[in-house]
């Protein structure tokens, strides 16, 4: 599962990053800013300052405005993220089914607090509002994979699997 995630984030055609390709393709479409930011984040894992400058130049929106858009949406990051993104659901159903215990377990296991990245750069933790898998609550999503009906024990095991996979 990890391999797929990596190719998705990786390089586009001809060795140019997806983000660069997207920038070249830009032809003045309205509303292109957010998709471009998404593409930058998809390529780099976060939005580097240089990407903001590039977008600003190509699209003609002042960097300050772009920054305003980035900080408005919770998806966008200005700092590098871990190799694996863990989204911990704290939606209503998960909350009722003790998602707090899951969050605490992950925080303890990874030694992070709230929305942080582990020291080894393997994991970034994100608390999210709802992943829409309420009937399987409590749920977490690691990269694009959803894991449901969790218990503190199952999460610990799951994290171990991911960590071993990364170290291979």
């Amino acid at each position, binding site marked *: 599962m990890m391999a797929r995630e990596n190719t998705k984030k990786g390089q586009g055609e001809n060795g140019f990053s997806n983000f660069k390709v997207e920038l070249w393709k830009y032809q003045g479409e*309205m*509303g*292109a*800013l*957010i*998709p471009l*930011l*998404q593409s930058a984040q998809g390529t780099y894992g976060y939005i580097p300052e240089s990407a903001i400058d590039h977008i600003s130049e190509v699209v003609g*929106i002042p960097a300050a405005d772009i920054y*305003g*858009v980035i900080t*408005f*949406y*919770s*998806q*966008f990051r200005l700092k590098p993220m871990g190799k694996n993104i863990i*989204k911990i659901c*704290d*939606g*209503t*159903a998960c*909350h*009722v*089914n003790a998602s707090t*215990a899951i969050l*605490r377990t992950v925080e*303890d296991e990874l030694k992070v607090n709230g929305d942080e990245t582990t020291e080894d750069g393997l994991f970034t933790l994100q608390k*999210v*509002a*709802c*992943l*829409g*898998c*309420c*009937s*399987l*609550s409590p*749920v977490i*999503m690691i990269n*694009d*994979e*959803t*894991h*449901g*009906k969790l218990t*503190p024990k199952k999460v610990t095991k799951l994290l171990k699997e991911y960590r071993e996979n990364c170290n291979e």
Partner: protein
Amino acid sequence: MKTIKVGLGTCGVSAGAEKTLEAVRLAIEKENIQVTLKETGCNGMCFREPLMEVIDESSHSFLYGDVTPEKAQRIMAEHVVGDSPVKEWIVQNSGPSGDDSFFEKQKRIVLRNCGIIDPNSIDEYMAVGGYEAIQKVLKEYTPEKVIEVITNSGLRGRGGGGFLTGVKWKFCRQASGDKKYIICNADEGDPGAFMDRSTLESDPHSVLEGMMICAYAIGADEGYFYVRAEYPKAVQRLKHSIREALARGFLGKNIFGSAFNFSVKIKEGAGAFVCGEETALIASIEGKRGMPRFRPPFPANKGLWAKPTNINNVETFANISWIIMNGAEAFASMGTENSKGTKVFALAGKIARGGLAEVPMGITINEIVYDIGGGIKEGKKFKAVQMGGPSGGCIPASMGDLKIDYQQINKTGAIMGSGGLVVMDETTCMVDMAKFFLRFTEDESCGKCTFCRIGTKRMLEVLERITDGKGKEEDVDLLRELAYQIKNNTVCGLGQTAPNPVLTTLKYFPEEYEAHIRDKKCPAHSCAALVTYSIRADACKGCAMCVKACPSEAISGEKKKAHEINIGLCIRCGKCFETCKFDAVIKN
């Protein structure tokens, strides 16, 4: 030849359906079995995922639940090859599980194809009558006639507001301007709601077809799907459907030989709940910060790029082609005086059978919770349902006979909302629930209106104080005052409804607020600060598991002898309670 279907919605996949599918594939290859293997979406029985269906030569369907790869192997050997169904795992029709009643009271329009057809195959959608409604409309109906049919059906928007769909279309039709847009709102931000995700994952073409009919009716030639970032599978299937429809010429120019042109794009959200609000959503598609603006002008007159725009929810669109094919009367014959047709509910929380259920309007809460949902998990006591997410409220179990329709639900102080129905039992603290939603709205407030930005924060602080055991007598009045001000001094629905979870819990569960404030007790034993833990000496086996689990070294005791918790050191994290295998740790 038999047909085998494996459900691959997000819920199925996270329950392990891909491994089940793999096991089925392997068995087919190894034994060279002649069957048709299909992937489908979700049929709503999320509580039984992974699901596998075997349809035999006489079209008899056998639905198996909780199918692990091992179970799949046995089903393949005994049923598919050996022709004798594995009775004990069947969950629908003639199974011992008693799950049949999950479907008995349902009436499926929106979910008509979900879990039945392969969402990645336009041919399968067409085999069940797909894209006939758009052809009928293009051949036989004027745009005005389409609007008349939808108006007569009584369909109301399923995204939360409940506005009459036909009337909304008419406004946009009548708006002046050559260029018009339509938008499908698939932002589904309400925590506890997943019907739009499931519909898009299981039957994307039905939503697309509904959108096309709408575009024809209002005179739009371009449309957008605005989909949440958290729904990668829905996006993937939508993209595939659009490509398929384009390849057939169902999208593009001169569709089905008519003068109607239509193209669609997908916009992925970037994680902001408020972007579900229509004016914020439009700002977001335009590439701006997603902040709502004052209405009027309504999007019907001035929407995307300042052009007339019609926005509808996924479920609203999924109803359209059914109404065209079956007639407005058939739709209007279901439901109540003011709410016609059906509604999909996402059942979750402390309910035995969590999943998606589509029911006729007018069904009671009890029927949904008990007859469809199978009652409360682990035999606990039903306390309340939360409807409408952060804009809604908690309806107590004592009102379980309430007939669900827009008006009745509004009367309780909750709202129909998008259809999330989270069930709570005696272990759920209602003050904590109110705090949970307030934290959500406080976090998601876009910051434009002062009362929403700061008012929700003040309310949250009061609730935090109460659940920490530091509540004051006057706090309840303070909450009411803040709620009133926030409701009346904000621009969009987010602020206007944000106090609802607090107001409804205050209305129906005042004694819980009192217990927290006056007695410093949480009746549901849920608020960490108000719970103390102790160990029952008669049940403790002295296994020392809790000693190891305790992060603050508050538990002492020798091996094989009863342990004790030092209250002074205890940080009330509950680890010992979770760890103990003998139920010896109790909450007081």
